[in-house]
């Protein structure tokens, strides 16, 4: 099927042209050396003071809620057992 192959070839050329056209606009960007050095220091040197991450409030509320619910359920079950 030469017509299809010819069309595919034209499409490939079109894509290649687009790619080259767009690529020509991009230059590699180098980071500021001071930024690079400072970040490297922060990443690799252990800080003198470590601040503990505070516990997640939502998780704490969930745990307390689950505890209260379990307690209430236990009381209800015991009450039912005594009634019977």
């Amino acid at each position: 099927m030469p017509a299809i192959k010819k069309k595919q070839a034209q499409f490939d050329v079109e894509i290649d042209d687009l790619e080259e056209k767009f690529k020509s606009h991009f230059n590699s960007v180098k980071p500021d050396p001071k930024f690079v050095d400072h970040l490297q220091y922060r990443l690799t040197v252990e800080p003198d003071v470590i601040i503990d991450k505070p516990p997640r409030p939502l998780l704490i509320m969930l745990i307390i809620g689950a505890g209260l619910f379990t307690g209430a359920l236990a009381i209800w079950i015991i009450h039912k057992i005594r009634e019977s």
Partner: protein
Amino acid sequence: MVDFDEKQVLEKAIQGDADSFSILYDAYIGRIYNYVYYRTGNTHDAEDLTARVFYRALNHIHTYRHMGVPFLAWLYRIAHNLVANWHRDMNRRKEVPLEDHTTFSTQHIDQPETMLIENQEKEKLMRAIKKLPSDRQHLIVLKLVEGLSNAEIAVIVGRSEGAIKSLYHRTLLAIRQELEQGEK
């Protein structure tokens, strides 16, 4: 291309060796910064997000397993996720800061008009790219800026090489259409 035994260095970094992580940092900071810069469009956010990429990498390196995915590919995934979150939070997908594009071409510095036209074309291209969905921006920057092959990108995003090639072609055509509509 790295000039050290990445596997050996990685193993030590995973075990918590700071010097080994430093070697990885030196090897890839430029690539990640370049990627993030073109995804954000300005130096300040590029530095902030690049720092976050490496903090996240440092805190989660103990979970890294090679499994056929190179370390740089893992870093690109972290960078993409952080940039996508940043876009969502800042709602800047259609904004391109003009004052920070220090990468304007200086090829025709002795021909100011040519330089101006080139810079304007680049600005239009950046705006068109910013309008793309996040995954397509990711693909375009990896292809056009980082110069990665379809096979390398396929590993990074976890898709087939054929799928990447097809998506890339469609994305180039979409960018061209956006530029043509902008001219009208």
